[in-house]
């Protein structure tokens, strides 16, 4: 009995940790109908500096790496139709700092909470247009993955995916409430626009 348990324990401990994957941190299109209704939002964002991630050591726990986080952000913006194909033509620049990934050391159900500081700058005048610190969590259970290292990886990925989703929703809301007022064409009276 002791031998059997030892063998299983060795196996579980022997599994190598892998970093969070881009495909699993990427969101599906966020509120595409609202982006469609606002053509100025389409292709409006350039991805600037992204930081704060940690490299995964195969001998330790799964982490969220900066390159993978950056790619997931880039993919999520693109799938939502907001990533600028030409960065020079973008109206906004997004910067993201992965402040913390709060992970459990062990457990059956593993909940990871990621905290990211998002800043969106208006490129026209280099002012801060939107800033939000988003904390999002995700729980992976043994039914998702039996091995602890894999479960932690899934919890990391789900947490970051949810984080990006919450940021994109918040940004679209903020943009709709604070969107730049379009220039009034010459010859049109302001009173006509309000009708």
């Amino acid at each position: 009995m002791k031998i059997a348990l030892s063998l299983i324990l060795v196996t579980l401990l022997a599994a190598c940790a892998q970093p969070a994957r881009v495909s699993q941190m990427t969101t599906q299109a966020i509120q595409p109908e609202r982006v469609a209704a606002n053509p100025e939002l389409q292709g409006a964002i350039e991805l600037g500096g992204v930081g704060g991630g940690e490299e995964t050591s195969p001998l330790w726990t799964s982490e969220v790496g900066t390159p993978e986080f950056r790619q997931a952000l880039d993919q999520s913006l693109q799938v939502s139709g907001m990533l600028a194909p030409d960065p020079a033509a973008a109206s906004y620049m997004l910067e993201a700092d992965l402040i913390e990934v709060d992970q459990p050391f062990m457990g059956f159900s593993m909940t990871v909470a990621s905290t990211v500081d998002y800043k969106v700058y208006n490129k026209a005048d280099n002012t801060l247009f939107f800033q939000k610190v988003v904390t999002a969590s995700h729980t992976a259970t043994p039914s998702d993955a039996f091995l602890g290292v894999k479960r932690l990886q899934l919890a990391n990925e789900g947490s970051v995916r949810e984080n990006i989703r919450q940021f994109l929703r918040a940004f679209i809301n903020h943009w709709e409430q604070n969107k730049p007022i379009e220039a009034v064409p010459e010859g049109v009276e302001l009173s006509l626009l309000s009708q």
Partner: protein
Amino acid sequence: MLLRATISLAALPILVAACGRPSQEVTVQRSSDEVLSCFQLNSEYQANLDSIGFNRDESLARERDNLGSIAGVLVGGVGALAAVDMGSAEEAELRAFIARNRRIAELSEAKQCPPLEPDMDSIVSELEAAEAAREAAPTTRPEEQ
């Protein structure tokens, strides 16, 4: 005898549970599809192509990991099979992304948007050719080629 039975019983729940990660939901048809602009359609199409690439890489990495785990059985016992990912989440997602991109191509054509490139038929052909080459690789010796 008792030891063997104990090991088998202990390994059983692990084997049952070793079914890989759940696949991410990729919706092929969405209620918002009709309102998407040509820019959005092209943007999502290109992002999905990247996702297809990521999923393919993941699938190959999983196969490598599984080979390692099976080798681990020899030194670590039956319990090492727990590390074998028997799931096919990447394949399911890959098929869903292909279906989604075909849907996007239909929408794009209906809206008379500029053609989406590369077209999905050529992507699928490439994937199938790569898969066929990979399956043939272990049985083909260099001198036979």
